[in-house]
């Protein structure tokens, strides 16, 4: 990925864990800490002039990543290096003087212009404050000129007329332009924009986005553009990174990632975006379950618990869908599945029936959109899936039944022991790093190994191996 020219930003093994100190209870119990892994080992670089989009669901760590880059947070581990034309900064190791200069070269624009502006400060006070703090321009007159010039640049023209306004006198769009002016007034090189238009009305939004594009040319900026809205990312960014539970799971040119996402999570994310066309029947996101807690993320690939394409161990004879279910059942057993919550009464029913019911519910994929459900799931009134209709090979079925028998007998440990070493996917044990998934896209997914690609070079993705 490195080119002959140094990239503007180089990030290596960046981690930010919150809540790492040991509390009294943890110390007494000796359980150790369970920090939130907001950013859990990201390595990437941003080229000069890029608009790098960071997308993902809430809690995926995208805002933390942005704040780390502008040193609003200090990383727990890892390094961030900025190579400006005339100076290099190691963000984790700066002197006071360097930090002052760094803070002038990188800026951040926040999400909510109703919150990020001080209601007691006039537009002039707000926009000129960074100039005073950074001791730029010597006289009031020069500062004022610079402020007016910047206000004009952000479309608040004539700038003079806005100087004495207070935030509450301005509309949402105008406020966000003031916030942008405040970032631009020091002539930065790198700007992190955290959901910059999500609080604005639709008809105003496009104007602010276009302004940010214009400013990029005018000021020679590099942006990190954080948004949950994939359509905005598509419009604004030439590169896109997708994050999941603190990991960057895909990174590459925006057009390619949107048209042909490589990581199964990215694919689901893009499938879930509604389309403004009433005649289209959109494919829905093939994802099961909810996002796990970032305090206790799954092992291996963090997405393996929800993934449609979880890789079966060698020798698996059944279908992909069947393995996805078996792997889900196994996880449920290891997490303490029992007969307690079943619809049937374990006391009143014969053991066979309780066992079948346990398997039927345990093999069900939660919260899957209708189009991906097994046909037997749709027909069953009491929920669960018809186990005989799933393509589970006989020996695997025997293992499942033995495990379920242990559970029916009330022996959770025996059940867990029976299934623990069976049906182990490498997605659960190996943690994938970003690797080449096509000529220009990198994905952190074990479906890809260097040189071995799931999809052909002409860009047609293989259909998900689901039924």
């Amino acid at each position: 990925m490195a080119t002959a020219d140094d990239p503007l930003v180089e990030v290596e093994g960046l981690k930010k864990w919150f809540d790492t100190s040991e509390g009294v209870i943890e110390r007494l119990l000796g359980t150790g800490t369970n920090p939130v892994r907001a950013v859990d080992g990201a390595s990437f670089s941003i080229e000069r002039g890029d608009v790098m989009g960071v997308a993902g669901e809430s809690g995926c760590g995208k805002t933390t990543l942005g704040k780390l880059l502008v040193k609003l947070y200090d990383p727990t581990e890892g390094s961030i290096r900025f190579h400006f034309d005339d100076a290099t900064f190691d963000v984790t190791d700066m002197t006071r003087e360097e930090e002052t200069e760094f803070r002038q070269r990188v800026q951040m624009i926040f999400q909510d212009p109703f919150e990020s502006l001080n209601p007691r400060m006039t537009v002039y006070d707000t926009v000129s404050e960074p100039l005073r703090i950074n001791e730029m321009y010597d006289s009031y007159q020069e500062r004022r000129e610079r402020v007016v010039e910047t206000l004009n640049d952000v479309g608040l023209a004539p700038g003079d007329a806005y100087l004495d306004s207070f935030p509450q006198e301005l509309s949402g769009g105008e406020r966000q332009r003031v916030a942008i002016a405040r970032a631009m007034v020091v002539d930065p090189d790198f700007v992190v924009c955290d959901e910059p238009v999500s609080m604005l009305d639709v008809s105003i939004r496009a104007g602010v986005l276009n302004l940010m594009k214009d400013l990029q040319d005018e000021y020679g900026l590099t942006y990190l553009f954080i948004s949950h809205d994939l359509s905005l990312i598509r419009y604004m960014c030439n590169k896109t990174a997708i994050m999941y539970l603190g990991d960057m799971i895909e990174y590459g040119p925006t057009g390619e990632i949107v048209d042909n996402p490589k990581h199964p999570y990215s694919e689901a994310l893009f499938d879930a975006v509604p389309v403004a066309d009433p005649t289209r029947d959109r494919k829905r996101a093939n994802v099961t379950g909810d996002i796990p807690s970032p305090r206790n993320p799954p092992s291996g690939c963090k997405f393996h618990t929800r993934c449609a394409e979880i890789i079966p161990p060698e020798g698996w004879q059944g279908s992909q869908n069947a393995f996805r279910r078996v792997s889900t059942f196994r996880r449920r057993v290891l997490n303490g599945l029992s007969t307690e919550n079943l619809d049937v009464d374990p006391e009143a029913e014969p053991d066979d029936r309780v066992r079948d019911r346990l398997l039927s519910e345990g093999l069900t994929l939660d919260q899957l959109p209708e189009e991906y459900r097994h046909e037997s799931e749709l027909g069953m009134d009491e929920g669960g899936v018809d186990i005989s209709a799933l393509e589970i090979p006989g020996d695997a079925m025997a293992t499942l039944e033995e495990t379920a028998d242990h559970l029916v007998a009330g022996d959770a440990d025996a059940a867990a022991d029976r299934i623990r070493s069976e049906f182990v996917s490498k997605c659960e044990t190996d943690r994938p790093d970003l690797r080449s998934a096509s000529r220009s896209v990198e994905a952190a997914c074990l479906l890809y190994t260097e040189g071995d690609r799931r999809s052909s070079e002409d860009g047609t993705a293989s259909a998900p191996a689901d039924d």
Partner: protein
Amino acid sequence: MADHLLEINDLNVRYRMDGPDVHPVDGVSLTVDHGETFGLVGESGCGKTTLAKSIIQLLDSNGDVESGEIWFDGTLPAWTDERGEVRRDVVEDPQYPVREDGMTNLAELSLEQIRDVRWRNVALIPQSALNALNPVYKVGDQIVEAITRHEPGTDVEEARGRARDLLERVGIDRERADDYAHEFSGGMKQRAVIAMSMACSPDLLIADEPTTALDVIIQDRVLDEIKSLQNEFDVAMLIVSHDISVMAETCDRMGVMYGGKMMESGTTESIFERTANPYTLGLRNSFPTVEEDQEQLVSIPGTPPTLRDPNPGCRFVDRCPFAVEECRDSHPPMYDVDRALGEATDEVAHESACYRLDDLEQVQEDAAKEETWLQQTTH
């Protein structure tokens, strides 16, 4: 059964303020049929939420329906008398504002009467559904309360069973009924609120920005859930949202509001296929799509109007590049779009409040060009 489930005629809502009154809904008419999904789309402050809330008299204390009617069919009237028996004679009772075809004017019901309508006939999923659950009661008990309060006489055990069924129906384990709201994820809370709104099987479900605070995958599931619930229970829906792509996917018909006025309404397909109002055209221009590379998004110049003291002309006139002299004098009435295009049908399928409908094709063509919208000063 009457023609429509809901028929709003020339509704005016007023908020009393320190200064002049504000009219967030100004002469709006719309109809929702049985089992239909109707979408109200518009930007913040256009009056869409106020309109939705006024249907079951949930306006803030300084707001009231100034004029207009809100006719509702549903299973009304089914009031009970002192002995708890259902009265069927209310049509003749002058106390109730009921029309010959059996529809009731919700706007004229007393507070006590409208309380019977809420939940049982019309349920609301509020805008901040994630905060709609009480943190100190179990989720299941909150649904039970909704059932027993609005269907007096229901056995608590039966209500409990129904609450669990409902949760299961929206994909939440029955046992989770004994959990508290903070033990639910955002998507689960949203689904629990949807389950709660279905508790008394209403005829009309009002959903105010049902997916706005949700992540895209969860939004996808909730929309899927709403759709299948609707198919199953044959409930009509009024969805309020600012997101035109959500509308495109979920609604049979929709209305576009701006500055308290209905600007365009009709079948979703017709509105997207032959958008017939400059405001809707502008709104679509400013919406990015994930599907294709867009050269340039075009924003509508200016800012939305304040609802205080609106000008006498079209609400959109100050921001509209197609405005002519006529537009400054009075707000245009709704015109039949098909007739303007020379394709008149018996039923009006698409209306637009615009004086320029006669040269609609020219307007559509110009609206697609960026320079059309740049003429005015940008804000």
